[in-house]
């Protein structure tokens, strides 16, 4: 069963989403990259619904909090991620299946490192328990 990863990518942090797709290189893990105007576009319920599709890992790549174009966006997203992770723990799912990475806009090595981190997490977590339930 193929692993599926969904990345919501802030367009400031990831100006060219194709970079993530070409750097991914993992054929056994399917990647979907969705560019967003800001990481704060993503709400907690959207993260949960994405996970429920079922996706195996849902990740948000945003800007460092003090560099957010909309000042508070990245910080707000951080709170939502924390809330979503607590929620997942409450319902018995691994909280690590949702998370975020912050990068400095324009920092390509930083972005590549974040992507490598996401890949490692996806490999380590494996398919979502929701898939096993059918």
């Amino acid at each position, binding site marked *: 069963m193929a692993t599926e990863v969904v990345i919501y990518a802030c367009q400031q942090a990831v100006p060219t989403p194709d970079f993530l797709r070409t750097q991914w290189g993992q054929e056994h893990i399917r990647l979907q990259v969705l*560019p967003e105007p800001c990481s704060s576009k993503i709400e907690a319920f959207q993260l949960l619904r994405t996970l429920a599709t079922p996706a195996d890992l849902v990740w948000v790549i945003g800007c460092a909090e003090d560099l957010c174009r909309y000042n508070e966006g990245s910080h707000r997203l951080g709170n939502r991620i924390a809330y979503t992770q607590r929620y997942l723990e409450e319902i018995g799912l691994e909280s690590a299946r949702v998370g975020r990475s912050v990068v400095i806009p324009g920092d390509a090595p930083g972005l590549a490192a974040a992507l490598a981190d996401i890949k490692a997490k996806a490999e380590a977590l494996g398919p979502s328990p929701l898939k096993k339930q059918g």
Partner: protein
Amino acid sequence: MIAVIPFPPKDLSEEVLPAKYHIPVRRVPPRLTTLAKTTIIDWNEGCLRCQRCVKEICPVDAYKKRDFDRKQFVDTIDEMCRSCYRCVQGCPRELVFKAMNPQYRQLGDDYYTPEIIGATWYQAETGKIPVSGAGYGGVFAGEGFDSMWTDMSEIVRPTRDGIHGREYISTSIDLGRKPMFLVFDESGNLMFEPPSLMELPLPVVLAEPPLGANPLRLRQMLAAAAQTLDAVALIARDAVTPDLMDAALSLVPQFPAGQMDLDDPLLSKVRALELTDHPEVISHLEAVKQRYPQLIVWIKVPGDLRAPDRVAALAAAGAGVIRLAATEQARGPNEAGEVHLKDLIRRAHLKLVEHQLRDAVTLLASGGIALAEHVAKAIICGVDGVIVDIPLLLALECRLCRNCQSGQGGTCPIELDNLTVKRGAQRMVNLMGAWNNQLLEILGAMGMREVRRLRGEVGRAMFKEDLDRDIFAPLFARPEGASRRLGE
């Protein structure tokens, strides 16, 4: 004595006027969430829970109907939002604002821009002319067809008001070789059998797009749409499968260069066919005419720098219909890559005029016909009709991601496999209905009653490059070597 003539005249049949061409449009909602140009960013944290929340008074109830599309992972509020900014301006904590949607900007490519794709989706859904309202937000001029401005001098003339005027505006064209003169005997009978003509009610031929995840289904939709429109669909011969035979009269099979079998059973079922230009094409044309006198033969000529001379030579040799083929970006192939289709058309048209053959042949153009206005502009430049392909695929909600071309047909985001032929065909019909209405509006604004009269009427348009060269360059010219500040 005063004669009283009853009206309507009783001795005339009911069908005094010819039936007006009507395209049956019917709303076909999209299967996927439409990607909007702008997106709402809605920060809930810190919300005051106002008694009269601005979200509750949204004119389109976007917040109430809001959902999350789990197939595309998009917020559905964006396709409903009309950008009135009531919520943005009204929220006391300024928690709602709008931003450009990067997923929208990712649509299409350099030629098929997100704006073209979005407008095509709207027309395919509704069959209506897209209206932007609140002023025109686009560029005033650009390259290619965008450098042409069409005549609007008669727009205040109510009787010829496009789709609503009392006078008919005909969008019909005739495909085929036309005799330059007629010869009658003493009894008034025509002394020769004129070549057959095919009348199309719309100066648009449908064609199979060069991409698409489910070509078989796509062709079925094309054939069905062509039947509904009373038009024809251009499809490669080897792609004409038995399931399309019911629509044979609406098909134009296209044969590769030098590959045509006179015993092909399809030739007795269709009204026209297309040959690809090659050195022996005229002899093939003659052989087809000999065996199938009623068939209309088209010849496809690449729109390169040799095209004008080749078109003239083919016309002189007896060709009836010639298609000038450009690339998907409306440019000539190979060394003609810098030349836009509009200039290729003008050159071919004028070459035929020069050889006094223009009225004898039908000239069609294909490649890069992306908008309704391109139909009228191409005809102004000199063709009789155009061939449209990619917009028909866009009508099916295609995003032009081109996954199908990269061999990943299984990952078509619009799941063409799940689109029924009836639904897809209706969306194509809707698009052509919207284009037809726009053509009527353009003709009405010019005061023209027939699209045939628009052919080659460059006086009905202004070309920016001509204005720049003839008017503005002399006006703003400075003596050579003069400093920029001279004259200020």
